[in-house]
């Protein structure tokens, strides 16, 4: 008994140490965002910020070469459109792939699973060619449309709908619904949890995306990740502004994450990946 208590204590000590390590990068962002440059490059490591006011924020907002406000707007538009589009397209397809089992459906499932294996990042060169051919470079269409056909989201929805009780839909069909109206009136309202889970994954992925936006989002549609990346490699990089920018960019996703984490955990554990 005493030995068990000892090991439980060890377990908590290990957990606390690991938790501190995992939180360290966040603390560094906050510290640097509210520090003078001298505090950041100090010869001895300073654990605390020395400038707890909005000086860094003001100079970041005034830095036109970063253009953080505009980039934030662009990222928000892109993330919302991409999340809405992906959910709509994948919800419909995932439902059909779970409910219909004829040959065309199996072929379609095969095409989806193949795309799951070959991630879009691998084919970014030809995807960019197609987007350029359509004249979509530096437009929201170019940023969003090629990315919303997600095999991953479709697959997660399909796995979820395999376990969805068919009796509910059968009853609504008897009551005069057709498959389309039954889908929107019965199935979707009962699937909010998985929609929130997939939506969270897509939203975070869209906000954090770098490779595709760096190719397509040039000037008018430059996103926050691209703006920060260009700022960090530029000659005139100033650490306090760079980290203040990081703080502003990461904060919305942390809030989204904390609020929707429950759905995310549920979605990942009950459907799909098992």
């Amino acid at each position, binding site marked *: 008994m005493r030995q068990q208590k000892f090991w439980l204590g060890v377990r908590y000590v290990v957990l606390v140490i690991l938790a501190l390590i995992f939180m360290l990068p966040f603390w560094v962002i906050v510290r640097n965002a509210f520090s003078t440059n001298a505090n950041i490059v100090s010869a001895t*490591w300073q654990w605390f910020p020395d400038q707890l006011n909005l000086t860094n924020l003001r100079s970041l907002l005034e830095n036109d070469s970063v253009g953080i406000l505009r980039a934030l707007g662009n990222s928000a538009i892109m993330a919302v459109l991409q999340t809405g589009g992906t959910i709509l397209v994948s919800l419909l397809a995932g439902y059909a792939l779970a409910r219909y089992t004829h040959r065309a459906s199996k072929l379609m499932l095969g095409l989806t699973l193949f795309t799951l294996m070959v991630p879009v990042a691998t084919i970014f060169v030809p995807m960019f060619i197609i987007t350029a051919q359509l004249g979509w470079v530096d437009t929201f269409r170019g940023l969003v449309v090629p990315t919303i056909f997600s095999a991953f989201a479709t697959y997660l929805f399909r796995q979820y709908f395999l376990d969805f009780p068919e009796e509910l839909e059968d009853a609504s069909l008897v009551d005069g619904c057709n498959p389309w109206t039954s889908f929107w009136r019965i199935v979707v309202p009962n699937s909010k949890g998985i929609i929130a889970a997939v939506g969270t994954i897509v939203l975070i992925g869209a906000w954090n995306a770098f490779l595709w936006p760096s190719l397509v989002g040039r000037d008018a549609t430059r996103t926050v990740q691209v703006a920060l*990346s260009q700022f960090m490699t530029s000659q005139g990089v100033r650490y306090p502004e760079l980290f203040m920018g990081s703080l502003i960019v990461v904060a919305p996703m942390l809030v989204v994450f904390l609020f929707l984490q429950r759905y995310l955990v549920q979605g990942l554990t009950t459907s799909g990946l098992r």
Partner: protein
Amino acid sequence: MSNATSSTIAPASPSTGRPGLWRRLRGHQGRNLWFAAFVAPFLLGLMAFVYLPIVWSAYLSFFEARNTVNPTRFVGLDNYTYLLNDGLFIQSLLTFVAFALFIVPTTYVASLGLALLLNNLRWGQAFFRSVFFIPTAVSYVIAAIVWRFAFFSGARFGLLNQAITAAGGDQVNWLGGTNDLYWVALVSVRLWLQTGFYMILLIAGLQRIPQETYEAAALDGAAGWRLLRFITLPQLKATSVAVILLLLINAFQAFDEFYNMLGSIGSYPPYARPPLVHLYLIAVGGGQQDLGVGGAGTMILTAIIVLFGVGQNFILNRSNT
């Protein structure tokens, strides 16, 4: 959404024209038509933005196409032989292998370790789970900023250099390429970002193991390490396989943290180039814009990743029988 459009898709009476073919096409109670209506947006998008690009790059890979998306001159397999003789391309494949050998086992062991630490924890489980899971919400760009300028900065103010000099050692140039230590930064940043995600999957796997299995094993006198070795790991096999496959696919796509931690204005060092970074530099970055070679590179990478998947399935099927 629009409920009114539905009746126009499937006409109620197919009595006009040739009923036989029409009836077979639309299926019992119009099943095929409903199926088509549901999958059409996804199917069309998949064709336009995944399959058409793959076909187009296969076509383009046999042509010269510099600074243009249109083929200018047929060159046969020249683009492929160029790439396979390109030392940097071969090296990029080796870089992926080395990176995968580091990152896949370490992430798996780390996430399994966290999952085991949290499993059946009475007090504070949700809190610690959130702490380890939350880096999932951070982008590789921001993590790269922290790693490059705060932890692994080559200057004396970098956290690691401070620790080393405080212990009496010499300042280390972590990312400069004068040594191989940039791997420490590349692996640790990815570990921080993705371990929590896989921990969640593994916790779910652990919770699906029936409690009776443990009780039965405990009655037989198994405990500690033997429980893990003979009960937990075998029962966790399906989840582990999925986790490792996802880790491999993700390692293959590595781009963001390499590009942002090692690149500088418009240039990238010749070392530590994973395949996607090298392809990016050939096809769209660095002013070369050689899309013929880019197409060939895409085909080679796609072939490699498909072979991976097929190989994985093959091994799985054999070990299951």
